[in-house]
């Protein structure tokens, strides 16, 4: 079972100094170590973006393919090897924009895997254009007149679409993020973890201190019930449209919004998915009764 150190490849991360990706890197390595997941039972899939460069920095079985297509690749992987823990890392552009349709359909399919979104509200790798989660009116090189559209609300979309595990976290609070990762990985079903990951180079608005002034933990809310979907949706909408407001005017909840522990997963719907594809032949279905019914 790899330790956090052993989960690092020999390549030194090339993210910009101070990038939120470092906190996410550390939290995930530690979560995997603490969950004691054997190396051969873990696979990771990445989209294209700064987050995706993690493919070079994690020492795991991994796949790095196309911008926006991490989830469908992971779907194929998880169906072929349902015995693996599959962790998918995507960007906000990658996962909510160009790959946004896969996000919705992965949620409704509820295949057991963990989807982590590095939400820096910017296209980091292509040097700072507006993304689908950039705040409205934000000025970037691709939107010098300001973003016209409303941002995607990933937590709200996931909750509304019936996701069985939905969390939001902040890359600046590594212990909290690690605990969320552990719950998401252990959840049976499709887990959505949207992580605010400050891009220190291109997003000069949503910085570490900007988030520190605003985030609070859902666990601290009196009587919050993460199995109540309607409440989760309400909470996802509560501050969403006010992200540009002053710290005392709006607070951003982080933590587990919703969890349905005993959900019906895609694997539950297809009994042969209780084992890897190459083991199918080991457990042939007994059809003698059916044959006997035809007098065979």
């Amino acid at each position: 079972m790899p330790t956090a150190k052993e989960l690092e490849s020999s390549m030194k991360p090339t993210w910009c100094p101070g990038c939120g990706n470092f906190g996410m890197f550390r939290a995930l390595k530690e979560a995997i170590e603490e969950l004691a997941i054997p190396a051969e039972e873990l696979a990771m899939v990445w989209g294209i973006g700064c987050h995706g460069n993690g493919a070079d920095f994690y020492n795991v079985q991994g796949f790095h393919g196309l911008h926006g297509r991490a989830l469908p690749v992971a779907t194929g992987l998880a169906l072929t090897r349902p015995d693996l823990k599959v962790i998918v890392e995507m960007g906000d552009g990658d996962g909510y924009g160009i790959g946004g349709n896969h996000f919705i359909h992965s949620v409704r399919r509820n295949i057991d895997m963990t989807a982590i979104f590095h939400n820096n509200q910017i296209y980091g790798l292509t040097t700072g254009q507006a993304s689908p989660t950039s705040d409205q009116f934000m000025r970037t090189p691709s939107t010098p007149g300001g973003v016209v559209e409303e941002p995607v609300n990933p937590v709200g979309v996931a909750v509304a679409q019936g996701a069985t595990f939905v969390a939001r976290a902040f890359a600046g609070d590594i212990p909290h993020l690690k605990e969320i990762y552990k719950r998401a990985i252990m959840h049976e079903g499709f887990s959505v973890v949207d992580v605010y990951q400050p891009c220190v180079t291109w997003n000069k608005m949503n910085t570490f201190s900007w988030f520190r002034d605003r985030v609070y933990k859902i666990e601290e809310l009196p009587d919050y019930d993460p199995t109540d979907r309607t409440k989760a949706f309400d909470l996802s909408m509560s501050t969403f449209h006010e992200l540009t407001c002053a710290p005392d005017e709006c607070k951003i909840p982080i933590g587990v919004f919703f969890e349905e522990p005993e959900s019906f997963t895609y694997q539950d719907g297809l009994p042969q998915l209780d084992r890897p594809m190459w083991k199918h032949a080991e457990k042939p279905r007994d059809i003698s009764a059916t044959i006997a019914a035809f007098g065979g």
Partner: protein
Amino acid sequence: MPTQKTIAATGNTVVAEAMRQCAPDMMAAYPITPQTTIVEEFAGFVAKGRVHTEYITVESEHSAMSACVGASAAGARVMTATSSQGLALMWEELHIASGMRLPIVMANANRALSAPINIHCDHSDIMGARDTGWITLFAETAQEAYDNTIMAIRIAEHPDVLLPTMSCLDGFITTHSIDRVCIMDDETVTGFVGQYTPKNALLDIENPVTHGAFAGLGGPFFEFKKSQREAIERSRAVIKDVGAEFSELSGRPFGMVETWGMEDADVAIVVIGSTAGNVRHVARQMRESGIKAGVVKIRCFRPFPYAELAAALSGVKAVAVMDRAESFGAEGGPLFLEVRSALYDATERIPVIDYIYGLGGSDVRLELIETVLNDLSEIAAGAQAPTGLVYLGSR
């Protein structure tokens, strides 16, 4: 000749400038290295009011080309830009644009396709799109990228043509290097490109039309394709005329095929894109050591200039084709297949050797080009030509 301004700028900057001067009604785009700065600079022009374009940043290239198709069908002049995976993701819509005869103009920053991941120059993206029905112009330099982009509007929107047109420039080498470029003034370009008068635009309530309806068995599908073929054949004359008219204004020559040293060449290299400059340089040097080398540069790949190429190569003893893309399982790369086909009717059989080079931005050093010309001169002197293609400079 109208006055021009000489500036030092990257290929992307002058393509953005050309687009501003062509004043499209609409642009929809998605960023991808090394195209990104074309669109960013254009977005800056829109924000400053230097061009009046409906500009939208969409969520993918599929959406970008779809939005361009919608706008063009509604009668707008439409321009956009992409590269590599972006062009690949547009695939479905590329065929819609040409099948519906929508004269969209797009710049493509030529870049390798995954896998494995690579962001550098080769021609796999654009060569993969060679059968999508787009007219395809290639630039060697930033200057040609600027010129081609302006000419592309006139070619695409010509009533005899009405086909989408791509203006291709080599990723990083041309898109990002600073080069000397002559820029025409706005009035000259405005006058040259003129107004676009759409023929069968949607939203004309007097003449309602549907674009793209089912044309299956028994329907006119086959004839639609034939009309696309006829249009791209007609574009040959239009490309020449537009090129000649542009040359008058700019003082810069334009040919679908451009030659160097071919008057008395024994051996020749056929090349496309930015490598042409290095090939000419080496050819010039080799002439000093007695090898009569010539260079044929292809500036228009679709329609392919068969006749012009055959004429340029007539009389040479050996030809090398420089292919910056693969066509796995074919006899050679995409350019090789065209060149060999162009030479099929030649009275003398000319040996043609395919050199695959520079995939994923791998370096094409001058020494490598020298080896090509040395090979050719030996073959011209009677040595056996290699069987099969040659991977130039691979490990």
